[in-house]
């Protein structure tokens, strides 16, 4: 199914991206070309193939990654807020939601 400029606009909205009309015009044929390229996978019969759900090796899958549910040191409020564009009295301040 061909990808249209309207599809690109919808994708941008879903991904919280505001794109300019110029970007929309440029992206449409580029993304359409990439999608057409990846569709070559449909020539393979994979009905009997299990999907690889991650990049883990067999050893990685066997590794016990759980840790004790214990309190540990963390960044702390001051450091965590240090990089915020608009910190306010111990919070991340954002523009109005509604």
């Amino acid at each position, binding site marked *: 199914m061909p*990808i249209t400029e309207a*599809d*690109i606009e919808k*994708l*941008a909205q*879903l*991904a*919280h*991206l*505001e*794109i*300019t009309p110029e*970007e929309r015009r*440029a*992206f449409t044929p*580029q*993304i359409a*070309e*990439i*999608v057409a*390229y*990846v*569709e*070559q*996978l*449909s020539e*393979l019969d*994979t009905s009997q*193939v*299990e*999907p*690889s*759900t*991650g*990049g*883990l*090796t*067999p*050893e*990685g899958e*066997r*590794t*016990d*990654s759980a*840790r004790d549910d214990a309190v540990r040191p963390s*960044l702390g409020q001051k*450091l*965590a807020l*240090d*990089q*915020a*564009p*608009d910190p306010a009295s111990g919070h*991340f301040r*954002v*523009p*109005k*939601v509604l």
Partner: protein
Amino acid sequence: MDFLTDDIETLREKFSRGEATAHAAALASLDAAEKLNETLNAFLQIDRAGALRRAEELDAGASASEDQTLAGVPIAVKDNICVRGLQTSCGSRILGPYRAPYSATAVERLNAAGAVVVGKTNCDEFAMGSSNENSAFGPVRNPWDTQRVPGGSSGGSAAAVAAGIVPVALGSETGGSVRQPASLCGITGLKPTYGRISRYGLVAFGSSLDQIGIFGRNARDIGRVLQVVAGRDAQDATTADVPVPDYAAEIGRGLEGARIGVPRELFGEGLDEEVRAAVEAAIEAYRELGAEIVDVELPHAKYCIAVYYIIATAEASSNLARYDGVRYGFRAEDSPELRQMYRRTRDEGFGAEVKRRIMLGTYVLSSGYYDAYYRKAQQVRTLIKQDFLKAFERCDAIATPTTPTVAFLLGEKTDDPLSMYLNDIYTCTANLAGIPGVSAPCGLSGEGLPIGFQLMGPFWSEGTLLRLANIYEQAHPFTARPRVSASSS
């Protein structure tokens, strides 16, 4: 001091004979980094004060640093890996003035071994690119020809090692971002097994593919760095509980009847003739040295770019959702409402390639398309992995070109994303399968540009790959030097 000739071993000998100090090494590196940055744009931040302070501390405590295997070794770190107190921009505007409040585990381990971080290197934005032209802070230039790209996405780290600014550097790989620039810049690069090096403090792009990788002038230096950074880390659940071997001992061993597999179907269409000839000569060199060359088949390797650009973009669209102008980095001004703030921040903060990939990832994950694209790609990923497992029953390593061509011109592929993506056609299979790969230089093209070959091996075979690369280096030293380097005036 000249890191075109001084590898870690030479440097350490100079230190122990009192011919050099950590301070002098750091100074040489910092001076070269600053001097060459106008030409190469390899560094986004050079930490002169921090590196010199650290080197002085090392010199002052020299007697206590016997077990610090990298004491005084200058190292560059890609700007998507956190070093406490320094910037982590990922080559993007969206991280704005961000300074890392903590260091990546790999960096902590390097520090503990005495390495001196001299700066943060330029890269494609969020490691998305094969030419370094997607950096928000301008492209890196190839030291062999400044009209050409160094490769990407870890182009700054590759250029810094190639130009002799540092002996070793960290990069990161999702589809070839260490091996491809290593090849284009005439140096050696390692992408380890998935789970070999902790990714704590590496900014996430494609989480089932990402690994920190290492650049060096030779395989032995890469082994020295790998020895320090490899191994399980409780901060990264994907690191595997697998013993870290003694890489120097492994690298020092001989060929021992190694079997090298050659997938002939990858030497066909799209491969530059000069690259083909150089890589075939390298394979022939292994035969002459006593290796057994066997034919292997990777019938699904040709689908790797299609699989990669579904899986990597899907994972990226999720990972990059965190950049929203709330907790750190850049926020667009004059947005009275929250959603608008998100959208404007991401519009102004992200470059074109990142937006393209986020949208592509959103598309392949969207309802109605998930099975056709994402699930399908995961299934073909299984087939690619199975191809390798089968091939490794017949050989210890698989040899291929690293890239289809030598370094291309700046601007040559920027308008054609798909043709740019095809640069990774020989490398991204290893990321999809989770296996390690090494690229090493094997000659120059007629225009004097480096050509690299790649060795890929079974899980956890970094020692074997570095040993084989070392054997080739010893027999066929790559002595050519780039036009732009720390020792050229």
